[in-house]
């Protein structure tokens, strides 16, 4: 029984030992390109427990560490009648050559059943890029194409991936004649080829200076499949209608396409920057022949029709006459028709509306006139001529609208009044009734004077108020300072006040007292000191402190002491002495004033 158990255990465990463990690596080609085309490395390991391979660093080759694909399989082997289980794992890695020359992929190690097994090194040859063949759509085999007499049986390459074309309907036109500009972008018709514009948010349009463009930027058209160079392309188109605005040679600039093309081929992914530019297109623009009278300015092919909003009109009540011009041409140049005189009616306007006709049948420009019947009875809007230039026949063409008979019923208003219409500035519906004749001239002029420029007096009036305000503000500021700053006020008025006092000395009953008060008062006011009880000694101290020169101090003190002696000694001074002292005091005050002002500045 025990022997049976050992046998069973051996049957289970032995196969693992008996499995041939192996690791190998292959590449899908031996010669690779350096143009960014990827190639694939396949690592295969056989065994029981198989770990992930360790990808080594390969000089000159970039290998993506994350496998592009993985697969695993299990097979049963019978060796000498023993059934065994074999696991096989495969990894496919993407790689890209980074330089030209001989390259080596070092051994790749895989842990199989606890053993580190390595692959053999792989030798590769990296070469400059050859033209990658593009994947073709089934059925687009060039040899089966029916593209005329061309004998192009070559395989498409990346050079054939993208094409751009600029097409115009005509390169010899008249001023104002429409030119259809078409920008076409050809992408090789295969889902494996992608193209993307990379130089900005939108593909820029070519320059169209000298043309009036409708729409302002090329608009997308329907996509199509076209054969070019016997290859099939998916074509995206943009269209624009151009109207030359002046005669001469006008140029439609180059169309520039900068982008990237990615092609997924059987040989890997091919990547290519594309910088394509079309040639400029020169358009010969001929001037229009001498226009006939009444030429509307329109160039193209047009039809015109006239309608009234009602044919039952009332005298003095405005109705609307619409003239619609339809066709292919520059909407900006479609001028208003020349209205003939409509008897018994006043016409004003027009208001203009522009709209696009469906199915690209051109545009419609509607001119709406306000028509006011002035007399009752029958009224007919006569046929209206519309003159335009038809480039197809190279001459001017005149078309006519239909006549519109109308009936005008009498208004209850005074029929002698004249009704005048408004204008296109939004007042065409308002009708103002004025007198039947103009107002008479005025025989007295208001003032026959020559018109003159008003800027000198305007300048005066503009500048005078702020200048006056400035003077007033300065005055108010000083007044405020006088009221708030006593010292400033006393100092400001000191000289005037003392001069008045000195002037009274000669006529005073007590001249020495008056002179003394004048000098003391001046010093007290000038230096903002208390006048009451000030002696000559105090005055001397104040003048010394304020840096007044010694000779002026001496003069002041002498005058004051003379007055004090006369006052306290009882010896009145003579008139000559008083005069001399007064003069000395005046001189001292003048000199002190000058020094104080100088210091103040």
């Amino acid at each position, binding site marked *: 029984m025990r022997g049976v158990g050992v046998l069973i255990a051996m049957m289970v465990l032995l196969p693992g030992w008996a499995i041939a463990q192996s690791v190998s690596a292959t590449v899908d080609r031996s010669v690779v390109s350096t143009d960014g085309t990827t190639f694939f490395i396949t690592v295969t390991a056989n065994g029981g427990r198989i770990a992930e391979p360790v990808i080594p660093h390969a000089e000159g080759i970039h290998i993506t560490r994350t496998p592009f694909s993985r697969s695993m399989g299990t097979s049963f082997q019978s060796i000498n009648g023993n059934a065994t289980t074999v696991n096989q794992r495969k990894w496919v890695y993407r790689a890209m050559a980074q330089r030209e020359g001989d390259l080596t992929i070092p051994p790749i190690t895989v842990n199989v059943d606890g053993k580190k097994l390595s692959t053999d090194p792989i030798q590769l040859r990296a070469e400059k890029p050859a033209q990658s063949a593009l994947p073709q759509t089934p059925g687009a085999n060039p040899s089966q194409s029916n593209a005329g007499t061309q004998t192009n049986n070559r395989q498409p390459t990346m050079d054939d991936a993208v094409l751009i074309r600029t097409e115009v309907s005509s390169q010899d036109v008249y001023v104002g004649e429409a030119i259809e500009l078409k920008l076409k972008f050809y992408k090789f018709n295969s889902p494996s080829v992608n193209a993307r514009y990379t130089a900005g948010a939108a593909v820029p349009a070519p320059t169209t200076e000298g043309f009036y463009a409708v729409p302002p930027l090329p608009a997308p058209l329907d996509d199509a499949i076209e054969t070019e160079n016997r290859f099939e392309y998916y074509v995206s188109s943009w269209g624009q209608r151009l109207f030359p605005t*002046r005669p001469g040679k006008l140029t439609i600039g180059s169309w520039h396409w900068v982008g990237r093309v990615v092609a997924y081929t059987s040989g890997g992914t091919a990547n290519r920057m594309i910088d394509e530019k079309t040639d400029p297109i020169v358009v010969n623009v001929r001037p*229009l022949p001498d226009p006939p009278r009444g*030429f509307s*300015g329109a160039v193209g092919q047009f039809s015109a029709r006239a309608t009234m909003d009602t044919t039952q009109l009332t005298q003095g009540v405005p109705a609307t006459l619409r003239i619609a011009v339809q066709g292919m041409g520059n909407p900006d140049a479609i*001028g208003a028709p020349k209205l003939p005189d409509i008897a018994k009616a006043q016409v004003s306007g027009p208001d203009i509306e522009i709209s696009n006709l469906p199915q690209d049948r051109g545009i419609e420009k509607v001119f709406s006139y306000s028509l006011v019947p002035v007399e009752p009875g029958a009224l007919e809007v006569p046929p209206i001529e519309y003159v335009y230039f038809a480039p197809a026949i190279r001459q001017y063409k005149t078309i006519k609208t239909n006549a519109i008979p109308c009936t005008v019923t009498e208004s209850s208003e005074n029929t002698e009044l004249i009704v005048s219409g408004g204008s296109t500035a939004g007042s065409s519906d308002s009708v103002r009734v*004025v007198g039947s004749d103009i107002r008479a*001239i005025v025989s007295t002029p208001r003032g026959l004077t020559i*018109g003159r420029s008003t800027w000198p007096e305007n300048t005066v009036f503009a500048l005078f108020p702020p200048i*006056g*305000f400035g003077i007033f503000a300065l005055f108010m500021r000083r007044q405020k300072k006088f009221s708030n700053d006593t010292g400033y006020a006393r100092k400001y008025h000191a000289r005037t006040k003392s001069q008045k006092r000195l002037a009274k000395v000669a006529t005073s009953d007590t001249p020495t007292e008056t002179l003394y008060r004048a000098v003391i008062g001046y010093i007290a006011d000038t230096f903002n000191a208390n006048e009451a009880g000030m002696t000559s000694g105090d005055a001397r101290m104040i003048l010394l402190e304020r840096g007044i020169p010694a000779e002026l101090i001496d003069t002041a003190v002498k005058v004051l002491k003379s007055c004090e002696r006369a006052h306290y000694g009882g010896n009145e001074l003579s008139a000559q002495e008083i005069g001399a002292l007064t003069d000395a005091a005046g001189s001292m005050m003048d000199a002190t004033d000058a020094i104080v002002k100088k210091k103040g500045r």
Partner: protein
Amino acid sequence: MTGIVLALMIAATTPDAFSNSFERGVAAYQAEDYTAAAEFFEQLVASRVEDPVVFFNLGNAYYRAGRPGHAIANYERTLRMDPGFFAAQDNLEMAKAKARRNLAPPLGPGWQQALLFWAENLSFPALRLMAIFFWCLFWLCLALCVWRTVPYLRGITGVVLVVALLCGLAAWTRAHREPIAVVVEELVAARYGPDEGETVRFELFEGDHVAIDLRQDGWARVSTVDGERGWTPESGLAYVDPPYNTTSSGPSE
């Protein structure tokens, strides 16, 4: 010689000379010689006399002579000087009724229409006087603010300043508005460029109003109310704003 010429020029431009031309113009008009009347009034315009009555009478003379384009231009000139000249308003309507299409003048910028709508019917002198008055009033209020404290005076001063600035802006825009002209010939071609050889872009009729964008060598680049733009000879236009272009020979019937 120079002195004599100067003296003659001064004599010719004295108020007496102006009065004489005016009276002769009125007399010719009353004698139904509208061509002569227009010539006398045109002489006054050529002498740079700016009196709304002269333009009004000139408009009447042209109207009677069957030239609605010139009549419209002169009534417009009258109303530019005195928007309250009701007789000119009425006669302008009559003249417009005689014109073929009456294309209105292009509207001014939107901000002007929104901000200065109240000034539409005020003349430039009135606006100028208002601006000066409120400007002086503002500084007076400001001085009053400096002098003593008065309730609400600061707010009133601010309002007066705003009014003064608005009046000033209105007067300035009136003095510098886009020049307008009236087509005075029966049919005037507007071309792509200032040359007779250029292609005709659109046509203007007598009495149509256009704005003048540019003047160059006897040509004017005009734009219409519906956005059309082209070059026309200046001889086919009468400018509504000074400097006025006058016809030397007066109207032709």
